[in-house]
């Protein structure tokens, strides 16, 4: 089959690899009808995340049709079922899964020993996301082996286009969890840093959950226009001071809830701390650039910081004094996808939201490697790329 394969920093190729096969009783194989490039895939593309090996198959936003089912998964799945595959692989039986903390499933990370050493305790197995999370082949491919398939799936009804449900795999529940864990009150101003795909989903989630005001921060006009369309007041951080504008919008009080939808590759803004981070990162003295975290800790009063943005390692100069003295609450983590998807699927079916608004490019799998670059460099108005491994033609917004 064809798949997008990682070979090194900025080196992804579409090439032929062996077809996946059932390896365990709980496995299933799906024929991928749609998959997407996630912002966190870019951290792998640029090799900011450790644990990749040449030959790894990329991708963790995938959906398709079940074509083969292992003996122990037949109670939950059958050939022909249409499924979205959550990026977190879950056993459904361990203590964390039973609590709903699916992203820290205790059983599915098959490289637990290595992950324990890096993070203290292993997180769940993830598709196509380094050997620290199990080294599972990803879903930017024609076929995908789904381990623990009886629990690692979201069944979707026929008749809804892939584009409306594909993002149940990651960015929609990620944006939703980012907003939910803020416990948004009708009096809250919610500030969201980053208007990429997760930021866009977070804006819509905060609007649906009834925030008084949603403020979105980015620098790219096309992303800001999409944020505004979703109900956000926008701040272009290259034109305005984020801190001053947030204070103006909240009568000097600061936003009660702050969400970091940027993560470890914060764009250098010309501020001193950004230049400092760039210099330290280039000398391998820190792995992550925490400009957004610093700004959130500074502007937030006694509120909640929600961090769906991906961080990978070590960072520096966090204003821990501001965090402690203001009593900030921090909620973060990879998304517990299946905790939210039944509810979110219902909201899609009821037309409360249509997540396909975020798609700007639809391409064949063969064009995937080039789209990594287009997405990373934010060219051609690119916000979200969907790939069609079975070949359904190209479409640009």
């Amino acid at each position, binding site marked *: 089959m064809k798949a997008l394969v990682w070979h090194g920093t900025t080196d992804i*190729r579409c090439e032929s690899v062996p077809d996946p096969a059932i390896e365990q009783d709980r496995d299933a194989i799906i024929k991928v009808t749609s998959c997407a490039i996630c912002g966190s895939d870019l951290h792998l593309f640029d090799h900011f995340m450790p644990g990749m090996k040449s030959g790894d198959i990329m991708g963790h936003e995938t959906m398709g049709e079940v074509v083969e089912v292992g003996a122990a998964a037949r109670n939950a799945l059958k050939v022909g079922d249409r499924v979205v595959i959550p990026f977190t692989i879950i056993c459904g039986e361990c203590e964390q899964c039973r609590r709903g903390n699916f992203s820290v499933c205790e059983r599915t990370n098959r490289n637990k020993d290595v992950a324990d050493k890096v993070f203290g305790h292993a997180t769940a197995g993830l598709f196509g996301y380094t050997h620290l999370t199990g080294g599972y082949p990803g879903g930017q491919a024609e076929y995908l082996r789904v381990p623990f398939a009886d629990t690692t799936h979201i069944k979707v009804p026929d008749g809804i286009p892939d584009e409306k449900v594909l993002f149940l795999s990651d960015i929609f529940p990620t944006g939703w969890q980012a907003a939910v864990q803020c416990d948004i009150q009708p009096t809250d101003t919610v500030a969201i840093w980053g208007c990429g795909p997760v930021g866009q989903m977070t804006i819509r989630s905060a609007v649906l959950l009834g925030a008084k005001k949603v403020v979105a921060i980015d620098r790219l006009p096309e992303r800001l226009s999409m944020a505004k369309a979703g109900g956000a007041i926008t701040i272009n951080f290259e034109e305005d001071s984020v801190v001053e504008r947030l204070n103006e919008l909240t009568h000097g009080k600061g936003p009660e809830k702050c969400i970091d939808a940027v993560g470890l590759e914060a764009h250098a803004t010309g501020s001193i701390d950004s230049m400092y981070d760039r210099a330290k990162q280039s000398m391998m003295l820190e792995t992550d650039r925490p400009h957004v975290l610093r700004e959130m800790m500074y502007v937030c009063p006694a509120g909640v910081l929600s961090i769906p943005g991906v961080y990978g390692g070590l960072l520096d100069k966090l204003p821990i004094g501001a965090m402690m003295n203001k009593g900030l609450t921090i909620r973060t983590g990879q998304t517990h996808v299946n905790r939210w998807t039944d509810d979110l699927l219902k909201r899609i079916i009821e037309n409360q939201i249509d997540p396909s608004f975020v798609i700007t490019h639809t391409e064949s799998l063969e064009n995937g490697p080039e789209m990594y670059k287009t997405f990373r460099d934010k060219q051609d108005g690119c916000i979200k790329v969907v790939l069609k491994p079975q070949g359904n033609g190209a479409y640009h917004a």
Partner: protein
Amino acid sequence: MRGQSRSGPDLMARTLGYFSIALGVAELVAPKAICNAIGLRGLDTMVRAYGAREVATGLAILGSHNAEPWIWARVAGDMADMATVATGLKQDNDKRNGNVLALSALAAVAALDVVCATALNAEKGSRKTALADYSRRSGFPGGLQAAFGAARDFQVPEDMKTPKPLRPLDGGRYDASRAG
């Protein structure tokens, strides 16, 4: 190149980046030998400085998302190199042949640098940077007004709720629960 994230110009830039580092290291380690080979005297320190420049430029090419400005920096460096080597084009230079050879090699590399930088620039243009307008993409089929608060019925899980002392003093569902 279709099916690969690294285009032809990208690969060329990376090759030039590695070449830059290799040449730079040679200039840093053996400036005297290089000067002797092309008949230049008393320029060891300058050649060593050029070596440091080559290494820095090479690292920048390999580490940058946008190699084009660094390739143009190499072109400027090529000009400086050629100007320096050309000072040895005197009739009394017993290494004149080596000098001419070095100048020819530098000119060839400079040409490659220009080709690479131009190709990187053209590629950027072909991927377009035109401003896209997404101002109609609300994502709410029922409209924005209907969407505000449409999911207020959602029950936030206990582990994600704000502690009571941090909730708003008036208005909203949590005041109601406090009264209850």
